């Protein structure tokens, strides 16, 4: 009997998937794994919905003339695309879907600290999402996802109440975000297993922890902003609207005070996933563990102090711009060094190129380009030229989409065998990865060029000189869309028909791989002791089960190879 097996009472046949049956058992479940999957389904739907809007926008931009839709419909489309992708997909995707499923198992516990709060967070997300999408659609809101005043508070935008109801949707979503954040912070602080000090924590947990802190601290600011907007509209108090004596630029300060840290809500969990995947598939301790762990916190902290770099051309003071530019570099440096850390982990590793690793390597490529182009935008004089052009569009898509989507798929393919106890098809997964990678670069790289050439963003029509770049970009968008569908298809096929997965298909040593695949309802009978998460050589591949087992449990032949 192994130490591991002793923790698992339920037999392999009794899993969280079949522990209880029926729709109701999912709808009112308190199980973090099921809630994670429900989050996954909703955020995946949001990604598809946002993707359809993106393709409509890109199709319209095939030529400068009207192709599909009028000015106003186009403006609504890019607004919907941005809002759905940011608020419904990127922000909740990795932390709420993968985080919910994996975090408690990584800690060796049965559930998060507050399971009911967890379920509440999910339903608040659903209500907020429905509220946001319906109100945006019904009121034909066209402000862009940034809701800048005074345009957003002027009477011409859809109906008078359009911005109010959309803002209310975002307000509701904020609570979902805060609840998840509080839950994760409490769980990590109080429920770590014996032997897991702060610096024995897997890096994914560090990343989710840093993210949660941002969620809890930054989201209320967004709520306050939206509340002020409401007060202004309802009672005519001049806060942002110059016609009432307010200051429209003040709104930008408030908005970015939330939305810049939110960028790190989007990318920190992605970095956490990448740190796990790179280590596992290199069979080597992640290089610079302490740096990566601490830099997550540093990025979370400094991320609060750089919002003004969105406003270099807004008319804010020279001194403020200089300070924000300097602080921006302080965030850029740890991000750059993380890339060096991941690359150094590959050095002298024992590298396997399974699908999760390919997605992770693609992440490094895209994130490096996203990060480097961020340097251009953080540099004051250069930003004046590039601000609000397609260069910015390309930059944040490289960071947020290239970063988060690649890491999401890396994480999904990595943990899918744990989620469903079934293996995916490597060929489908790898071809999809290639399509996503090529499609992404074809879509967004030309945007750096046309942005540098002066093409402004949020333009329905454009000068002829930019057309070749727009056309390449549109072709790329379809390749990207097809690749993403294929990546999802690979996952769905695996969940339905994939061959049985071993408990530990990759030879990773974080705790979630020490329970069965899929995990039993309770994850573990009792909390196991922490392992050294990156001691890969404690494991050895067992041909018979097609997975990895502890060295001492291995059959004699496969032992100390």
């Amino acid at each position, binding site marked *: 009997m192994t130490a591991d097996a002793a923790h698992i009472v339920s037999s392999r046949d009794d899993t969280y998937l079949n522990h209880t049956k029926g729709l109701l058992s999912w709808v009112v479940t308190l199980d973090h794994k099921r809630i994670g999957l429900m989050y996954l389904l909703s955020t995946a739907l949001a990604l598809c919905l946002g993707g359809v809007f993106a393709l409509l926008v890109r199709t319209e931009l095939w030529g400068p003339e009207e192709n599909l839709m009028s*000015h*106003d419909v186009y*403006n609504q489309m890019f607004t919907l695309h941005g809002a759905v992708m940011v608020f419904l997909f990127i922000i909740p995707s990795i932390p709420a879907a993968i985080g919910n499923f994996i975090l408690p198992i990584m800690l060796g516990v049965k559930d998060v600290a507050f399971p009911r709060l967890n379920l509440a967070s999910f339903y608040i997300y659903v209500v907020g999402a429905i509220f946001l999408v319906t109100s945006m659609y019904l009121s034909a809101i066209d*402000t862009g996802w940034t809701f800048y005043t005074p*345009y957003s508070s002027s009477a011409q*935008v859809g109906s008078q109440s359009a911005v109010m109801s959309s803002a209310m949707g975002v307000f509701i979503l904020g609570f979902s975000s805060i609840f998840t954040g509080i839950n994760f912070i409490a769980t990590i602080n109080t429920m770590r297993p014996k032997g897991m000090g702060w610096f024995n924590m897997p890096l994914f947990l560090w990343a989710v922890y840093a993210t949660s802190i941002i969620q809890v601290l930054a989201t209320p600011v967004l709520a306050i902003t939206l509340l002020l907007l409401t007060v202004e509209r309802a009672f005519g108090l001049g806060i942002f609207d*110059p016609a009432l004596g307010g*200051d*429209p630029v003040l709104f930008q300060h408030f908005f970015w005070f939330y939305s810049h840290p939110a960028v790190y809500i989007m990318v920190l969990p992605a970095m956490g996933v990448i740190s796990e995947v790179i280590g596992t598939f290199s069979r*080597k*301790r*992640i*290089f*610079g*563990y*302490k740096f990566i762990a601490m830099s997550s916190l540093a990025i979370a902290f400094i991320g609060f102090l750089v919002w003004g770099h969105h406003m270099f051309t*807004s*008319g804010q003071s*020279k001194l403020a*711009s200089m300070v924000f*530019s300097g602080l921006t*570099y302080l965030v850029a*440096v740890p991000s*750059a060094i993380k890339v*060096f850390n991941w*690359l150094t982990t*590959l*050095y*002298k*590793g*024992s*590298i*396997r*190129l399974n699908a999760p690793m390919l997605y992770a390597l693609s992440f*490094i490529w895209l994130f*490096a*380009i996203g990060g*480097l*182009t961020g*340097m*251009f935008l*953080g*540099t*004051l*004089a*250069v930003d*004046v*030229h590039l*601000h609000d*052009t397609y260069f910015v569009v390309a930059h944040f898509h490289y960071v947020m989409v290239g970063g988060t989507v690649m890491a999401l798929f890396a994480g999904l393919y990595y943990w899918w065998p744990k989620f469903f106890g079934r293996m995916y098809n490597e060929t489908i997964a790898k071809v999809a990865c290639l399509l996503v990678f090529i499609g992404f670069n074809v879509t967004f790289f030309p945007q750096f060029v046309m942005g*540098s*050439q002066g093409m*402004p*963003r949020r333009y*329905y*029509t454009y*000068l002829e000189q930019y057309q070749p770049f727009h056309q390449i970009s549109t072709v790329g968008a379809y390749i990207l869309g097809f690749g993403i569908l294929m990546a999802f298809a690979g996952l769905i096929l695996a969940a339905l028909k994939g061959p049985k997965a071993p408990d530990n298909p990759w030879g990773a040593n974080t705790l979630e791989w020490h329970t069965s695949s899929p995990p039993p309802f309770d994850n573990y009978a009792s909390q196991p002791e922490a392992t050294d998460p990156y001691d890969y050589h404690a494991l050895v*591949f067992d041909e018979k089960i097609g997975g990895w087992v502890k060295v001492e449990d291995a059959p004699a032949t*496969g032992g100390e*190879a």
Partner: protein
Amino acid sequence: MWFTSDPTFWMPAQASNHAALVDNIYYFLYWASVISFVACMFAGALFVLKYRAKNINDKALSQVDHSTTLELTWTLPVFAVAAVAFYFGVMGFVSMKTPPDDAYEVNVTAYKWAWAFNYANGHTDGNLHIPAGVPVKLTMSSDDVLHSFYVPAFRVKQDVVPGRYTQAWFEVTEPGEYQIFCTEYCGTKHSEMLAKVIVHTEDDFKKWLDSVGNILDRLPPEEAGKMLMTQRGCLACHSIDGAKGVGPTFKGSWGTTRKLADGSDQVMDENYVRQSIMEPQSQIVAGFPPVMPTFKGKLEDREITAIIAFIKSIK
């Protein structure tokens, strides 16, 4: 490609005093990025090929998981590049934000969806005419929502904010025409809020300024009206050829009866046109959005008379 003022693959032609300065930092960052990106990706590819596991149970050749020396060493070039870019970025920015005292001043008003450039002699134009070889300072404000003044060839961009003034300045050496974009989203026709900078030699600029003054005295009212409506951007939304725009077309409109949004009928006559210019939201034609800005205080009575004369003439 670094020291040319011609357009390159990445950048438009350099047409103002700020352009070379911006481009030098841009290309410094560009080459720093290309070199570090290629080096990183090359190293990554090399490691993946060289250390690919041949047997699934192969152990990693090393488990070294940190090296303070290495980690400090690679932090230094990152900091160095960041420090250089920061310093020159700040210097360039300060110079872009500090107009010289002797600059030629033009006042700019932005509104949905056109630009009005106001000159000291009272002339208002839809395009920005400036002299070459003289620093020009723009003092800008918006009548409605946020806009942003952007000339790619000058590397100049500045948001235009309602309720406050923002400034931009530049000096252009060569006469020519350059594109102005609006780069802060402002609604339906944001992408058509375009104008030109027309740079004259100093002598030509003086001649132009004289020629555009006093059009009401010099030209028949229809022609003066047409010039005014072009300059003030009226024709961006109201077509004169029957095409559907944001607002109703003027073609053949004179004397016709139109249905208003409140259901009443209204004849297109002198009073209606005047009312619509002064209080655009008061009598909206059914089926059109209430988006026109007011021109109260911006057009004189004689100018409105000329505009009416022009509208009458569009059969």
